[in-house]
């Protein structure tokens, strides 16, 4: 990114941070967390930082004008020591739901390819239309469908967390990640002290991975129809029934079919439906107990949007509710082949056009590498 663009983003981010410190609060038990940040145009990741309180955090923002700020979900005795000396105590349970993992068909329509060799920008391609290089960077401008699909996964996740895993609704906090999805935090649960392996098992449960036919009543030998789950059962038995039987009245007929098709066909059904009824979370995120996550209230430098708490997920619209940069007009040279909407205003498509746009829209395109300050 060129220096003028960096200067523009730093100025805009700084203004946001100065005016919105109320949105950035340190998470509970601040001195036990590890913080980290990155600056624009720097590959260096400043990690292993410990902070006492909000004041120190705000100082970090003002002194460094970071592009991205992170905070651990883990609690340590010595958060600023090297990883193996930190003395891990426990970690909040975190889930990452990202539109890019949902295999949505809309994705190809709003993904652009930026060639690493010649910087040519084109709509989603596997090789550069100008120099044929296959080293492309993909940037997505997620659409409404992406956000709505991610919300459905959030609601599926909440359902499993509350009904199966006994989590209190008020201990589940949902954040828009600032780019393409949601981060779901679970506080004060029985899972705080679990290690990575145990969390990975929890992930398989939530994603409906690894189910065997016996769990749903199908036996290899002498299968018995009375063992199949009922429509109104709790947990995965109930979700399985609703998905596979469709309705209460079809239960008997479908069970006869399942029995007739046999054990291995039943296993295949279980493997297949995990894609539909399982919650699509990123397993690696939940399993990692030493990760640092984007700090709520901070800006995501992939988009210029804020990672923000969603109090009403159904009504939440990231393109208005997470867009906090100012409206001052800026002139940019834009090469953005895809239309997008921010603060209820449509922008693009632009083909190598010099245009005047509000700061938030300029930042959005510059963060996506689809514009530069003119």
């Amino acid at each position, binding site marked *: 990114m060129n220096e003028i663009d960096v200067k523009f983003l730093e100025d805009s981010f700084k203004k946001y941070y100065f005016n919105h410190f109320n949105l950035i609060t340190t998470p509970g038990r601040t001195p036990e967390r590890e913080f980290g940040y990155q600056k624009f145009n720097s590959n260096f990741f400043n990690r292993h930082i410990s902070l006492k309180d909000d004041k120190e955090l705000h100082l970090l923002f003002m002194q460094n004008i970071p592009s991205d700020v992170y905070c651990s979900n883990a609690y340590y005795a010595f958060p600023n020591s*090297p*990883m*193996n000396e930190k003395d891990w105590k426990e970690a909040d349970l975190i889930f990452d739901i990202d539109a890019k993992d949902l295999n949505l068909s809309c994705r190809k329509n709003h993904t652009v390819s930026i060639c690493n060799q010649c910087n040519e920008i084109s709509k989603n391609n596997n090789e550069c239309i100008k120099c044929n290089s*296959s*080293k492309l960077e993909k940037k997505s401008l997620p659409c409404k469908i992406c956000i709505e699909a991610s919300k459905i996964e959030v609601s599926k996740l909440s359902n499993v967390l509350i*009904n*199966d*895993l*006994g*989590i209190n609704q008020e201990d589940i906090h949902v954040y828009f990640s600032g780019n393409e999805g949601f981060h779901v935090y679970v506080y004060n649960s*029985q*899972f705080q*002290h*679990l290690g990575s*392996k*145990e969390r*990975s*098992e*929890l*992930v*398989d*449960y939530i994603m*409906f*991975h*690894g*189910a*065997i036919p*016996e*769990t749903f009543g199908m036996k290899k030998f002498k299968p018995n129809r009375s063992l199949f789950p009922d429509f109104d059962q*709790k*947990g*995965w*038995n109930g979700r399985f029934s609703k998905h596979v039987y469709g309705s209460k009245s079809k239960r008997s007929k479908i069970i006869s079919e399942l029995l007739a098709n046999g054990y291995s066909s039943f296993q295949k059904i279980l493997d297949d439906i995990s894609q539909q009824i399982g919650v699509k979370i990123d*397993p*690696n995120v939940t*399993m990692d107990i030493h990760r640092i996550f984007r700090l709520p209230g901070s800006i995501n430098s992939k988009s210029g949007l804020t990672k923000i708490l969603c109090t009403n997920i159904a009504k939440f619209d990231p393109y208005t509710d997470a867009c906090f940069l100012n409206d001052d007009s800026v002139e940019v040279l834009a090469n953005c082949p895809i239309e997008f909407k921010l603060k209820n205003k449509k922008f693009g498509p632009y083909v190598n056009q010099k245009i005047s746009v509000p700061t938030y829209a300029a930042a959005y395109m510059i963060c996506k590498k689809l514009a530069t300050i003119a």
Partner: protein
Amino acid sequence: MLVLGQDEKAKYPFLADAGEYLKDKGFSLAQFGNDPVLKLSVEKALHRIKVAAAGEVYKSDLIDGQASKDYVLEREVFSFLLAIVLIKLTGMSTLVKRFALAEARRAENYLEKDLGNASNKSKIDLATRIIYDLFNIEIIKENDFFIIPVSDYLRHSVTFHEREWKLINRHVENGKVFLTPDKTVRLIRKELGNYISSKIINAPKPSMIPGLEKIVDELILISKKLTPTYTIVTGEYPPCIKHAIDVLEKGENLPHSGRFMLATFLLSRGQTVQQIAPLFKNAPDYNPRVTLYQLNHLAGTSGSSTKYACPSCEKLKTQDLCFITKECDNIINPSQFGKKRK
């Protein structure tokens, strides 16, 4: 501390304090080397170890956890305590493991019976108390099931490789897992084994008891025969590793978890960081400096000096990195691929 009756000590002899028990009964260890009556207990102890070494569970003289004569109960406890003494005298860790596992399975049978005994509340209470005291798991009986918190279930089941033990294959409701008595005790088998083996390991090693030399020699011989040796019969890579190499060769992106698996696997096969690094040069985000830094970190030559191990097959399945074939032959970690037990 649990207060146990004589029959409970016979069922769960590992709960008894060995030194105290012998003292209470008025015996010293040396007497077991030459007293012809006590010899019976020594023979029983030897039998108990042999059965365990063969992978079986020792069948005691108790009937439904009871015995008609006090001396039968006593001999049950003696033979257990003596078995520990004999194993200590051999100094063979294979015997410790086998014996602890077999004794755990034996105790498991009793625990299961006690838990499943709907008519006798005191027996259920004792079994749940043992499980709570030893392993800090609170079990609550609800109708025909025992329910335990999901987190406790995961802590114990995570080492099991059978799929039926995955949380997805259990009835889970409101933060609790529902288990039958047999599954409840099976869940703690390993810990029970660990508990018993830690008792053996932590027991002081006695000096040789005159009269027991022959038995100890016999046990050493048995133990030596048990120690398996593994040899690599093929240098071929498992399918997950082949797949990862394919992806990289095509210049496609291999996720971080896949790179971690590949690097740790090759390190475990004795390859050096310099040999492994070029594999990543086709990756879309290849940076030689970062690659070397990360490989050195995994090899333990920089950073924390922790050498990272290749993830288990189960973990790779979760990460969508497993491409199982029948050649995998029930291994539980890619690093076991192609190794055969002699």
